[in-house]
């Protein structure tokens, strides 16, 4: 098993923000917050969700990125994409609808401009991949493998892939893959053959039975699942008599979708043997613990960052406080604790 340099065996001590390099059990207040995703060990369960944190540059002055469990990058596609016309956002009670359209600089500029900066972080880097065709996804992964080296090279800037088959805001690819179990299985299998790095498939809630898609990804060789992407939603401006965002519908995120995400994780984690990463409307430690109790091994924070960039680390502190209060030493035990 590979471990990142300098993060041999990290434990979390409440009260201080320092990490300790000690053996488990040597200190009664030491908590084991580590999470295993395939061959990758994340130092704690709290990640920042794809699309909300760029490639780590923008929030550098506001967030201690090295304290995160994982940074899930904005989606990378084969070609550069301008994204959808504005307006791209509308706020709705306890939620946000976006239609960004996977705006990104494309794989080549990702490799030359973004990857060198991602290498500087000590948290796990999960590169989110999107495409219009199966070949697009495969080519992006092959380009990264060629540049970052095969397998998990320490400090390569790429510790795992998150496969976006659930973006609701593009015409081709995205969610049109993620709603068809046969396509998900075939795409996952092709990517499995292209990399030894952990593969995380990000699922859409916009399906009749999310467990069917989850099982297809597992059969295709996924190491883990991210649950859930945004929920298709729409707001209409009744004065102008047109949709509030230019593309009509978009993806709803924020506290409004948290119960949908918790239910999806609860169902999916009982349908597959691979780990599930929960996301959707997590703003507080209590929200994160709902996901962990529902069966998630880790969580991602997205829209809450926009309200408070400190939210991920406050959530991490809150999870640790809860574990202390409930005498839970290992984070991985939480998912088995619900009655």
């Amino acid at each position, binding site marked *: 098993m590979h471990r990142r340099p300098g993060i041999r065996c990290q434990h979390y001590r409440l009260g201080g923000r320092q990490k300790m390099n000690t053996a488990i059990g040597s200190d009664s207040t030491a908590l084991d917050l580590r999470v295993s995703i395939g061959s990758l060990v994340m130092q704690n369960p709290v990640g920042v969700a794809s699309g909300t944190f760029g490639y780590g540059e923008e929030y550098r*002055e506001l967030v201690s990125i090295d304290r995160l469990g994982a940074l899930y990058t904005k989606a990378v596609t084969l070609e550069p994409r301008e994204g959808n016309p504005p307006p791209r956002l509308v*706020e709705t009670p306890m939620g946000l609808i*976006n239609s*960004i359209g996977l705006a990104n600089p494309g794989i080549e500029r990702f490799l030359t401009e973004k990857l060198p900066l991602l290498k500087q972080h000590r948290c796990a880097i999960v590169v989110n991949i999107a495409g219009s065709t199966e070949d697009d996804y495969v080519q992006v992964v092959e380009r990264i493998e060629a540049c970052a080296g095969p397998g998990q090279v320490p400090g390569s800037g790429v510790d795992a892939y998150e496969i976006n088959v659930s973006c609701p805001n593009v015409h081709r690819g995205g969610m049109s893959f993620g709603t068809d179990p046969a396509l998900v299985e075939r795409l996952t299998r092709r990517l499995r053959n292209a990399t030894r790095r952990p593969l995380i498939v990000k699922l859409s809630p916009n399906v009749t039975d999310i467990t069917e898609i989850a099982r297809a990804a597992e059969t295709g060789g996924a190491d883990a699942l991210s649950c859930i992407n945004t929920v298709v939603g729409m707001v209409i401006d009744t004065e102008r008599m047109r949709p509030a965002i230019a593309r009509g519908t978009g993806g709803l995120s924020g506290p409004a979708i948290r119960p949908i995400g918790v239910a999806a994780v609860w169902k999916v984690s009982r349908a597959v043997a691979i780990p599930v990463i929960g996301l959707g409307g997590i703003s507080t430690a209590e929200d994160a613990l709902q996901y962990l109790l529902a069966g998630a091994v880790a969580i991602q924070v997205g829209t809450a960052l926009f*309200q408070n960039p400190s939210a991920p680390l406050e959530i991490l502190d809150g999870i640790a406080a809860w574990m202390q209060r409930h005498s839970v030493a290992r984070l991985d035990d939480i998912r088995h604790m619900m009655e």
Partner: protein
Amino acid sequence: MRQFSAVISVNNPAAPDWMHLAFEWPNQTEDPPMDQPKPGQFFTVLPPFVETTAGALLRRPLAFAGFTSDGSVKHAHALYQIRGPMTRALSLMKPGMSLDVIGPLGTCFPLPHADSRAVIAGGGIGTGPVLFLAEFLQKQGFDTTLALGFRSESRIPLRGTYESARLPIWNSLIRKAVIATDDGSAGIRGTIIDALMHLQQSSDISRWHLYACGPAPMLAALGKFAEQAAIPAHFSAEQWMACGVGACHGCVISTKTNSYLRVCTDGPVFDASIIDWEADRR
């Protein structure tokens, strides 16, 4: 850019629907010292009453309208309108309370050439940042003219009885400004363009550098005006914003070359000639 808890020093009604907010700027002894806000830049706030704000979620971006010193304490100022639950929650805050602020964010207005005349146009929500710019350029010794457009006299902030003890410069700037109102209740009857046409009669337009901040239709009209007059122009744009720091790509506006720029980090101040100011109105 930094996230900090700011102590509110002023939060007063400055006209119907207008509020004047000021808060203490963090201590400059920090290492490295924090950048001071420049005209055109903005900050985002999260009022603490989120549970009473009817499900509002996002921080609100507000433009800086001034930066003053009160002995050793510095204050950042803004003018805002109560538009929805978040700004209503902000309007209920009292001096002494602490406010969650991230800033300074975005680009600032560039200086004009030394022999240029800075013609600064603003109106509605754009009033605060143009007051800051006018004050800043005047202090630097530039030939500066302020033109403001409003729907009617009652909508003009800082013109009635409200005098800011901390910023008397605002009142004098507004008194001296060329004003246009849609209904003719103050100044010239018409729009900001009519105010500029009026100014043009007594001024060599080829020396102008046009600056603007205001509602989208105003910027669209001013964009055309600057293009026809072939003068340099820099406008501050507004768009719905989520992260405010460039990460989410939610706040883009359209350029004339069919690409998109982020208002929060590529802007909010743009060279007016590259932006398609009409795009959002089609």
